[in-house]
């Protein structure tokens, strides 16, 4: 069945009431009953949750073949815990048919690609799939198609019972013996743990894995001891040098800076740029650099930001320290500066869960109160559909992350990307995969010009009034193809290797197995 973004979704995926994507706000106002986990009662006061090994914790939590385990990725490329636990489950305990539901996957979890190839891991549910895992999934090595969700879509699926977790393994920088756990105060700090919160509330069993045992009670903490079954102390939960860079680097690339300056110009030309406005950027070079240019507009017009949202980096913390930002609502930290800032400023730098951040199935996520979001793209097509998941060659190598959530929630969603990357046309006729529907994307800023979605005549007027030149997105696409040549269409096999859920739980797109071009 063809969905609202023109993608053909195979009928066999549309079982048990699953629907194809119907357009934005389709689920608005509908009601559902939240799922509930199994809870083991800890009534006896002497209850001690400390386990000496991961295996002991797994056995206490009834680890078994065919179960679903979950992890979070706040430790990013420095994460040891995911691989450490999977090794115990598969190599030591000999378990099989496992589904791994993570908040994202990167090179730190490359070991999982081996287990996928061996058929021990049969399902992956994640936001990001990159590196060897992306290649293994793209090659069709999973028994069931991977399920890709946004950061808001994941807690929605958990709360609605579509993703049921048997055991959640939560890496934490500190924990007390009872399981009050957080991302600060330890030897390997990850900062905000917004990704792990839904898992702790809805998994049948929760195992906290830490390398720093803190005095009881280790509070305030995002992971609450009333949800935790076991606590395991290991040598190291991760490599701190890879958890975050020292500080997310500010680009010096003149092309990036020019695009960032134009983004700031567009923002300052809209009526939403007023005292108390709210803002989020991605951490890509040009997105991050927008902060720099926005600052001068804020000072010039005596405007302060009400709150900044999402993943945080050092420069937004610096902006707050200058008194220009009211509150930071933080789901994850991209650098050490931010992790320290979170620990030092509990009065104005707050940790929030991804459900609070971006779920489309609660009573009001923060993204719905976002004025501006500046995001990157792997590809954007002439219908303003964005792809941040698959490479132009059809292989999984990205993540929707908070992209579709913030695009839909915000008043102005700006995509900033160079027109071409090497021989890849970023602005193209049809994106490989629609991760963010075009009707939620408002402005495109490239190094060859700005285009505004015709659905936003109000923004077109704003730009005209401010004498900001803009062109049609079609002319940008034509310019791109004139530089790199018109790409051939990718060829696919029928087999679906991944299903991409829209943030409301309907099916937005599917990724099929790529048929590599062989020249005769």
């Amino acid at each position, binding site marked *: 069945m063809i969905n609202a973004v023109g993608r053909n979704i195979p009928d066999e995926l549309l079982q048990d009431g699953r629907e194809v994507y119907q357009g934005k706000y389709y689920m608005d106002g509908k009601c559902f009953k939240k799922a509930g986990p199994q809870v083991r009662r800890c009534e006896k006061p002497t209850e001690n949750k400390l386990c000496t090994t991961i295996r002991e914790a797994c056995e206490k939590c009834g680890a078994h073949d065919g179960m679903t385990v979950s992890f979070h990725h706040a430790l990013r490329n420095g994460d040891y815990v995911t691989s450490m636990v999977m090794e115990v489950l598969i190599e030591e305990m000999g378990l099989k048919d496992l589904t791994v539901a993570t908040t994202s996957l990167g090179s730190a979890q490359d070991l999982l690609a081996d287990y996928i190839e061996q058929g021990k891991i049969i399902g992956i549910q994640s936001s990001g799939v990159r590196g060897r895992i992306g290649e293994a999934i793209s090659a069709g090595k999973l028994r069931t198609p991977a399920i890709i969700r946004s950061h808001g879509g994941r807690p929605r699926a958990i709360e609605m019972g579509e993703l049921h977790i048997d055991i959640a393994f939560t890496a934490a920088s500190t924990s007390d013996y009872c399981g009050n756990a957080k991302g600060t105060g330890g030897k390997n700090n990850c900062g905000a743990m917004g990704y792990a919160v839904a898992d702790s509330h809805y998994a049948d069993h929760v195992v906290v894995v830490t390398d720093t045992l803190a005095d009881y009670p280790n509070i305030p903490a995002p992971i609450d001891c009333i949800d935790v079954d076991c606590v395991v102390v290991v040598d190291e939960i991760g490599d701190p040098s890879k958890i975050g860079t020292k500080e997310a680097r500010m680009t010096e690339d003149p092309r990036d800076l020019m695009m960032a300056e134009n983004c700031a110009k567009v923002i300052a030309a809209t009526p939403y740029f007023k005292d108390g406005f709210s803002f989020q950027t991605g951490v890509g070079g040009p997105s991050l650099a927008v902060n720099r240019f926005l600052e001068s507009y804020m000072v010039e017009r005596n405007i302060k930001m009400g709150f900044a949202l999402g993943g945080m980096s050092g420069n937004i913390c610096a902006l707050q320290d200058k008194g220009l930002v009211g509150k930071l609502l933080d789901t994850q930290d991209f650098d050490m500066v931010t992790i320290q800032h979170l620990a030092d400023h509990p009065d104005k730098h707050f940790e929030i869960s991804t459900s609070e951040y971006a779920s489309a199935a609660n009573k009001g996520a923060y993204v719905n109160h976002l004025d501006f979001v500046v995001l990157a793209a792997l590809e954007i097509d002439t219908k303003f559909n964005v792809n941040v998941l698959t490479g132009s060659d059809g292989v999984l190598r990205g993540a929707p992350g908070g992209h579709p959530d913030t695009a839909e929630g915000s008043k102005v969603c700006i995509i900033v990307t160079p027109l071409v990357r090497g021989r890849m046309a970023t602005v193209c006729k049809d994106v490989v995969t629609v991760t963010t529907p075009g009707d939620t994307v408002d402005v495109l800023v490239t190094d060859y010009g700005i285009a505004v979605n015709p659905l936003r005549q109000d923004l077109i007027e704003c730009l005209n009034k401010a004498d900001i030149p803009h062109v049609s997105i079609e002319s940008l696409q034509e310019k791109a193809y004139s530089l790199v040549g018109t790409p*051939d269409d990718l060829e696919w096999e029928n087999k679906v290797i991944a299903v991409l859920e829209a943030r409301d739980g309907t099916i937005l797109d599917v990724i099929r197995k790529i048929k590599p071009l062989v020249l005769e």
Partner: protein
Amino acid sequence: MEIQKTAMAGTLESSDAQITVEPADSGIQLSIESSVMNQYGRQIKKTAEEKLRELGITKGKVKVVDKGALDCTLKARIEAAVFRSCGVSQKNIPWGGVVR
């Protein structure tokens, strides 16, 4: 022109292509690897064949390792490899002839 000895041009940097040419007894054996094979493989092949024809090459082994080079880069690298293989890269480059 004729490929007289093994010669190379280009690098394996992103947006470049590395071309290796070798003499052969008959025919052209063209092999192509590319980081953008699925979208541009056919075009790379067409560009390489056209350029070799323009240069008058009728026999030789030609290997293209492409890292997303634009057509103009690809052509320039093929020309350079062929000229080096027949010793005309230092002088006598046919400016205005096959090189335009």
